[in-house]
């Protein structure tokens, strides 16, 4: 089962990007404290995103005629891995590059592609994902935000929540109901590109448990949108959103959320010369799991490169990956405190505290553990 998840090699021409992107990442990561870098893809820096865009590192999978560099998913893997590995701030272009742009490319009209994709590739446009609502989390098909047809387009009413980066975003791609009611489930849903500056849109940031405000509530009160706001086919929103989720779930960010902490801990161990058996084994266990997950993530990338949509495989890698991401802070905490008389520097402790606190979100965002396992079970023919 799941034979598609099998060892693959990143092509040398994509591997060749590594030193270039590494140097760029170092410019914004060097000298920055680990507890700041641990924010990983929550770290927001528009100037850095524009810089990456100018250097051709955004839209790596997009055709050149839309401003992309037409290199494909393996190139994107290399770039993303290098950025996440040092905790470079990538939030300003993250969602647009990962899923909004491929969605627009796959389902958008030529006009929509021309309009949105070049500025995305320049790192100028920030997108957010409008799926969750107060009453619709895991049960995404139950969304109640509604768009009704008007003479000129659509009128939008409803509310989204937990929308990452909404406060900084230019656009949201929202999953909304355009016909029928909740009983129609997967039918009658559509995706709309919502200009967040349109009258009637209110964005209210939500502060998270670590004190950051990366996500928000977004309210729509009679928001008038042009006909071209519809992306893809009316009523096909469910199918489109599932293709989008394969992009959302399959990337290396699902294995690297705790990597800055892991590296800070390894550095601490080397500096302090700690090499108790339990500690050494733990370092080995993390390394073995990470190497395996990385190979699995590259295999998913290979599927994307072949034009497949690795919905089930991505769920499997994400669930296993987030388990490691969550085990890292838990086990590191136990390891450090197993030697209560040792001095641990404040930066490592702050990084640990931050990652420990946000770790539960790793297996919520992008689909919860239970939902992903349900998808895997379906993939095995159990549902």
């Amino acid at each position: 089962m799941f034979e598609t998840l099998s060892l693959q090699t990143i092509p040398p021409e994509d591997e060749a990007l590594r030193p270039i992107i590494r140097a760029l990442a170092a410019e914004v990561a060097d000298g920055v404290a680990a507890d700041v870098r641990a924010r990983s893809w929550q770290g927001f820096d528009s100037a850095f995103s524009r810089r990456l865009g100018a250097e051709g590192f955004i839209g790596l999978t997009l055709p050149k005629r839309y401003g992309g560099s037409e290199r494909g998913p393996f190139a994107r893997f290399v770039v993303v891995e290098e950025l996440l590995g040092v905790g470079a701030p990538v939030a300003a272009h993250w969602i647009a590059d990962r899923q909004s742009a491929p969605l627009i490319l796959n389902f958008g009209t030529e006009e929509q592609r021309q309009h949105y994709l070049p500025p995305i590739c320049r790192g100028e446009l920030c997108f957010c994902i409008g799926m969750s609502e107060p009453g619709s989390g895991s049960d995404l098909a139950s969304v109640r935000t509604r768009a009704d047809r008007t003479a000129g387009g659509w009128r939008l009413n409803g509310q989204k929540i937990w929308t990452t980066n909404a406060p900084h975003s230019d656009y949201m791609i929202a999953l909304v109901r355009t016909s029928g009611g909740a009983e129609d489930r997967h039918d009658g849903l559509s995706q709309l590109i919502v200009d967040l500056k349109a009258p009637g849109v209110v964005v209210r940031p939500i502060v998270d448990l670590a004190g950051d405000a990366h996500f928000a509530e977004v309210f729509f009160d009679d928001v008038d949108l042009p006909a071209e706001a519809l992306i893809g086919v009316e009523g096909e929103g469910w199918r489109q959103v599932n293709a989008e989720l394969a992009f959302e779930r399959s990337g290396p960010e699902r294995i690297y959320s705790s990597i800055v902490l892991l590296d800070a801990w390894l550095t601490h161990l080397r500096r302090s010369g700690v090499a108790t058996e339990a500690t050494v084994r733990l370092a080995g266990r993390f390394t073995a799991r990470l190497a395996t997950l990385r190979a699995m993530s590259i295999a998913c990338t290979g599927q994307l490169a072949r034009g497949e949509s690795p919905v089930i495989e991505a769920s499997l890698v994400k669930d296993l990956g987030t388990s490691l991401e969550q085990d890292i802070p838990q086990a590191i905490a136990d390891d450090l405190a197993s030697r209560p008389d040792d001095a641990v520097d404040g930066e490592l402790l702050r990084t640990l505290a931050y990652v420990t606190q946000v770790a539960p979100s790793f297996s919520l965002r992008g689909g919860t553990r239970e939902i992903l396992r349900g998808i895997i079970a379906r993939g095995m023919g159990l549902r």
Partner: protein
Amino acid sequence: MADMDFAAPFARMVDAACPPATVRAIERGESHAALWDQFEKSGFLDALVPECAGGSGLSLAQVGPLIQTAGRHALPLPVGDTMIARWLFAMLGKAAPHDAILLASTRAALTRRPPTEVADLGLFENGGELYLAALAGLSDETPVEHVGPVPEGGLRLLAALVRAASIAGAAGALLDRTVRYANERVQFGRAIGKQQAVQQQLAVMAEQCVAARVASEIGFAGPLPLRPEAVAIAKAVTSAAAPVVAATAHAVHGAIGISEECDIQLLTRRLHQWRISEGSEAYWEGRLGTARLADVASSVDWLVAASSVPSR
């Protein structure tokens, strides 16, 4: 995919030659000569032997799936071990014996092997040298035959890698069987596989099986000599997966899985055995951790370097 060219006929052969009844018969002590003869004649045992020495000259990566297949079928004879042993003999310019050869990093591992680990000869390491011993009546005093110097990195790397692939294969077979059983067994008026609690367990089992297979592939990637980190990744991850996979297979099968008659016991028993053979996850995590801590590279740097397979 070129690898499939060898894997499919091998799988067909094992399927036909070694049904569960044969596994049980050999484990009971009945002669394995007829079964071994089939492998001997098939040519697969010389898969790794260079073509100039009369073998097939397959790469390690091509042989990995064959050893997984042997694991899938709970093959009671050391086919993977013998493939490695014959390659070692060829490298030393020696003719390999025709018998079933078990690899062991120490002589003690041979004398204390479980009774179901059936073979004719054992190839083991002692003081940097390889020795061959007849397994029948083997004790710590039995005379042994000197073969030559151990391969780079030691015999344990090779033996552990065979165990890793065997675990990956057996785990995959257990997943297939367990999912099938969950879809067939009805309780409370519907298949138990329709119960979300069962589905979630099977999803975790699937994750462990895929991780085990991919980790095994990491071990088999690249040319010989083996890279110790790659073997450590393979054996650490497969060994850690083994008890989880075995436990879930049994949990989902219920009481029927506890019966001798149910074939899953052939596989779960081997999972536990292979997990502790040639170092458990703790041993390999220790080796890997030592190497990792000695290297100042960042995690991503280390992973990239570890995955870049040197070409032959």
